[in-house]
Each structure stands twice: as C-alpha cells, then as structure tokens.
C-alpha cells in the first residue's frame, strides 16, 4: 500500500508541471495572457497594494506599461510580492518575468547573479532618517550611533564603507524585512534608520508620528534603481528597456494621458515615429505599431507616473531632483526612437 503512495506522489509531480518555456519570454507572456511581475511587499510610492489588493506605484506603473504595450490592457498582471532576499531567486527560477522592485543596479548583480538591468527608472541615493529630538543635523555627527538596516541590501554595505572611510564608530543592527527594521528603529533599538532616500520617505509614512522624524541631507551612495530581467533573452530585455524609454520620450515630447488623442494626429515626425504612425518600430520589438499609444493612454508618461506616485502630487512629496529630464536639469535621458 505504502509503495503505491510513493508512485502516486511521483506521478502527481509530473502532472503538476507547467507548460514548457518556448522560444522567449515575450512569446510566453503572450501565450499566457498575463505578465508575471515581481514587486515589493508594500513600499508606498513604488509598489504597494491597497485594501482591495490593487497595486500602485512607480515600479508598478512600469509593469502596467509593459502589459499595456503587449495586451493593450494594463491589468493583465500577476503581482508577486518579494522580500529583498528572495527577489533574485524568483527571477532566476522563472517565477516572474520582470523584477520591478526598487533594485539597485550594481556590477556584481549584473554579472554573477545572471541578471540584466533594463534601465533606470529612479535615481536614488542612500540616506539616514533620525528622530528630530536627537538634534542631529548631519550624517557626520552620527559617530557612535546604532544603525538599523535591512540585511542583503546594498545599504548594509554602503553604510559600512561610509563609516569606515571617515573613521567613525557605529553599531549595525540588521533585520530581514523593511517592516522589522522600521519597527526596531521606532522602538528605539537604533538611533537612525538607513536605506534609499525614497524609501525613507515612504517608510516615514508608516511611523506613528511622521513629523517627529527627519531625513538627513547627506546622500552617501549612488542607487540607480531599475527593472531587472534574466540573462539570455535579448528580445525581452529590449521590450522592457524600450517601454521605459518610451515613457521618458513621451514626457520629453509632452505627450500625456490627456492629450494622447490629439498627439496621434501631430505632424511632428519625432512624435509620429514614437506613436507608430511612421515606421514600424513597435513591430521590430515584437509588439504592435501603436505600442507607445497604448502605454501613454493606460499609464501615462514618466513624469505623470512620477508625480502621481512619489512626486508632489503624492503623499510622499519627493522633489524630482536627479529624476528630471536631461533638458530640465536632471539626468533622465532616453535614446531616441528612430
């Protein structure tokens, strides 16, 4: 009887197998009819679910834009919330198609983890949050402090570098999740909480009394955040990359969700190329000609997405700063579509 059970188990194992991976991720996604998108477990402004399980945020908008470009429907997405720890494994194992989860682009992640960063949708840097009553004005005054951080992030390494380079003493206290880290900071286990500045602003909203806390002016690292795909599928890599560039180009040409219908009729050759009434750039990517129209209609351009989720129009209220377009004093610069 018992050996039958074993046989049953093995057979059941075969039966549960998912469909085989075809030529590429884009075809898989098209066949499947839904995009698998890896996001955070809840980071206001970047990716967070509301009470009904609807996801919003800057990173979520990128996934919505990809889904819009492929299906003309930004809601054909299955979101997979991931911790900092398991995000790469999930991508490597094929559980998700794209990781859009405020992930810093570094050389080692690009190479030894077998990943490709498809661009930068948010230029960030690491900072410190501290209680106002500690009366600290600069990170240079933090010598001897206890610092809370999340393990397995670049923040953990940057803070070590920063203090070591300035010969300052510190005590590192690391936790597995962002919530645990914040809780420890709030309970007074640490003097300061360090992570990317954008995340500090987002996490501050989760504190009992946000106005008691301030973010110090120093930014101690470069944290270019962007979407990530697996090595080895250049077509999919191009799709993700160019969806982001399309959103930036749309902002540069002042094409918004509101004026998209007029823009389609624009005589401007640049706009015509972008919106697919001239050339077949979308088809070259394996998409349709009107891919950018779909993106802008459903999701909006980069600037709109920024303002809605993290910028002045949102609860976070973060200045555009580095994330302005290149012609407005920032460094967001997308290659042209032609």
């Amino acid at each position: 009887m018992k050996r039958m059970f074993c046989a049953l188990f093995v057979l059941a194992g075969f039966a549960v197998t998912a469909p085989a991976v075809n030529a590429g991720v884009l075809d898989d996604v098209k066949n499947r009819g839904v995009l698998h998108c890896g996001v955070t477990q809840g980071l206001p402004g970047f990716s967070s679910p509301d009470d009904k399980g609807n996801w919003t945020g800057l990173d979520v908008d990128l996934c919505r834009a990809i889904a819009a470009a492929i299906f003309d429907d930004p809601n054909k997405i299955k979101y997979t919330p991931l911790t900092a720890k398991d995000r790469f494994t999930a991508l490597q194992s094929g559980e998700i198609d794209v990781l859009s989860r405020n992930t810093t682009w570094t050389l080692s992640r690009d190479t030894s983890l077998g990943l490709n960063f498809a661009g930068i949708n948010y230029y960030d840097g690491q900072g410190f949050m501290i209680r106002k009553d500690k009366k600290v004005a600069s990170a240079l005054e933090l010598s001897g402090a206890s610092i809370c951080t999340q393990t397995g992030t670049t923040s953990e390494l940057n803070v070590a570098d920063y203090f070591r380079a300035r010969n300052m003493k510190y005590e590192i206290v690391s936790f597995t999740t962002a919530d645990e880290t914040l809780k420890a900071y709030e309970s007074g286990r640490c003097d300061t909480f360090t992570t990317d500045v954008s995340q500090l602003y987002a996490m501050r909203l989760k504190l009992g009394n946000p106005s008691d806390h301030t973010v110090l002016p120093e930014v101690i690292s470069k944290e270019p955040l962007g979407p990530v795909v697996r090595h080895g599928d250049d077509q999919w890599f191009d799709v993700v990359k160019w969806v982001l560039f399309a959103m930036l180009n749309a902002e540069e040409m002042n094409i918004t969700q509101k004026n998209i219908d007029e823009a389609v009729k624009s005589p401007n050759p640049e706009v015509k190329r972008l919106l697919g009434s001239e050339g077949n750039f979308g088809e070259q990517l394996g998409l349709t000609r009107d891919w950018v129209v779909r993106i802008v209609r459903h999701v909006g351009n980069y600037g709109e997405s920024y303002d809605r989720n993290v910028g002045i129009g949102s609860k976070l209220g973060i200045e555009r700063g580095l994330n302005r377009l290149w012609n407005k004093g920032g460094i967001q610069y997308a290659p042209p579509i032609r």
Partner: protein
Amino acid sequence: MTTRTFVRTAFAPNEPPPLEADSTASRFARSLFATPANFALTVLSVGIVALVLPPLIRFLFLDATWSGTSRDDCLANAGACWPFVRAKFGQFIYGFYPAAERWRPNLVLAFGALLLAPLLIPAAPFKRTNALLFFGVYPVVSFVLLTGGNLDLQKFLLGRFLQWTTVAGVGFGIGLRWAFWTDFLFSAVVIVALVAALAALLRASVFAAVTAAGMVLAGLGIILLAVDLDFGLAPVETRSWGGFLVTLIVAVTGIVVSLPLGVLLALGRRSRMPAVRYACILFIEFWRGVPLITVLFFATYMLPLFLPRDVTFDTLLRALIGVALFAAAYMAEVVRGGLQSISRGQHEAAAALGLGYWRMMGLIILPQALTLVIPGIVNNFIGLFKDTTLVLIVAIFDLLGQIRASFADPNWATPVTLYTGFAFAGVIYFVFCFGMSRYALYIERRTAAYGRGS
C-alpha cells in the same frame, strides 16, 4: 580494621507519621509549613503568584478596552486593546483571503472538525471509513475548495516525453484539457502493460498485478479529475492565504503526509535489506540533524534550482513539502519506538500463520504498534503545530506572522497593541497545544489501563 562507609552503628531517629494519617487540612498545612525550608519555599511561591497573576488579570480584563473602533479608544486605558483584535480578526484567521470567499475556508475547517472528532474519540464507530475519508478524500476536497481547483492540467507522462499531446491538442482543436486526458489514458495503458509484463517475467500472478496497477491509476485519475474540473469557484492564490488558516494547513498537511511516510521509513529502518535500511537511516538522521528553518529556506529559495527549468512550484507548496519531509523523519522515530515494543512472538506467530511481510505488518504489527504510539503521534503534532510559526521566516504569514505584521499598522499604534497581540496569539496557541497534550495523556492512560486489563 577499616570501617565501610555506609554502615550505621546506631539506630536512625524515628520518621514522622506518614502524611496520609492526618486530616486534609493539617496535611495541607504540614505540606506548606513543615520545615523552615518548606516555609521559605511557600513564601517564595506566594510571592511569585502575587507578582504575576494580579497584573495579568488587570491587563486582560479589568483595565482592558472592550469596545471602540480606533486606536484613540485604547489610548485611555492601560489594559489590553481588544478592539484591535476585533478589527484585525479576519486577517488573523484568514490572512488576505478574499472576504467574499471566506465561506470556503470555513467549510474546510468545519469538515475537518467533523471528520476529526469521531477519529479522536475512541468509542466512535466506523474508524476505518473515517480514516479513509480524512486521509484520502478530505485533502482533495480541501485543496479544491481553498484554491478553487480547475488546475487546467496540460500533459501527463507521455506528453512530457513526446510533446505530442500539446501538438495534438492544438492541432486537432480538441483543447488542452482533452489532450491531457487522452495522454492520461494512453499513459495508464502503457503502465499497466509494463506491470503485466514485469509480473509475467517474474512468473507472478499477472491478474493481481494488473488489478493493483489499475486501482492505483484509477485513484490517481479521480484525484486529478477532481483538481482539474471547473467547479465555478473563483481561484484564490496561496499568496493571499494567511493567519490561522495557514497555521492549520501547514500542521495538518504535515501530519497527513508524514504519518504514512513515517511508517514507511520506520519499517525501512528495521528492514533486513541493508540498502533499504541504510537509505532510511540516512534520510531520517539527515532531517533530524538540521534545523527546520534551513529546510524551509532550502525548500523556498533553492528548490527551483533543483527542478527542471519549466517546472514551478507554488511558494506555500514548497514550504509544505519541506515541513512534511521534516515531520516524516520525526514521525519515523516515534513509529519505530512502537515497532520495537512489539514482541518477537507476534512476528513469529504471524509468520507461522503464513502471512507475508506486508500482511504481517498491516494486519498484526502496525495496528498494535500505532495504537501504542498515539500519544507520541499527538505530541509530534503539537511540536509541528508550534513549528508552523517558522514559516514566517520564509515570508509566509501564519497566525504569528499576521499578528507581527499588524504591529506595523500606524492606525493601531498604541502602547498596549504589542501586548494585546501577544496575549491573543498566546491564548490561541496555548488552548490548542494544551488541549492536544491533555488528549495525548488521556489516550496514554487509557492504553495503559487496557494493557493491564488484558
């Protein structure tokens, strides 16, 4: 001449009369205040009770906030904030299981209780049918109810190797579901033929072999059909499961899978075939030597690396596999204890009756051994129930995980939220574990009394 150490040369002083000789009241008094040391211990005990009990009662009942809708209602009192528990109750029990679909987990829990109760009461009839329902039918029904079923199976054995069913399914326009079932039928025929050939080769009864193989395949087919059919239930991803529901799922799956697996391993460990024995010993000792959290970690984050690239497993399922294998190793040791306590005479008597190995085990040895180790099995289950909390380390939110997550909610941030959450979780865990341990004790006494009587 030397004197030995323990030789007494004078009479020992008389002992005081035994306690039983006194009245209850004076016995009680003597037990508390007989000697100065005893008196000191009494004072110490009273001190500890006085230190712990009154603040606890005050926190839980007297100073507690009983009604309210927000954190402001709780800020005034120093006691527990019960409105917090009421507001989060759904989350603590079901996680993020959609509110409209919560009747499904409720139904599963009700079925479970209905099947388990008569299984646990020794006097209740139909044990065999009941066990079959609980271990065979109930898991499938629960699976369909909780996930929504409708797995949309696409290929079975042959499809895996030949890839032709997918082609056929698409090519002839019969759809993938039908392709799967044609594949299943063909595979079944091939397997039965192989078994028959093997039986013939060994000059064993072909008919018996074919019947057995056919029954296994039929059973498998029914299970697959159940999970494949569309019952019109909305699919609910395991990601949105949580709270006490997950605690129970992990614990019950662990026990349901680990029991048969544990019996097999225990038998294997006592086998006279060296390869079987050593394989089982290695398996058991490996799982018992590593912490559960490494197992969970492995199952959650590394299993994908060990599987073919096109196979993906659900996160919760991965954790369940880890827990079940881990529990099986411990279960094997409990069962082995039972097997060892069955006297050789039973084996010899069974062999003398002409019973083969499996009949000897199934009809004579295991029924006795398993009855003996029921308390051990229940204790194992208690351990498993407590160990389910570890899944929160691999980002699955069980009861404790949900409660911990709720501490981060700024809308309920009060000085007493933390204690209230712990009190609630503590009471639930205690009631379940304590109840089960009493049950184990009851069965133990009953078995012992039975043994004496016969």
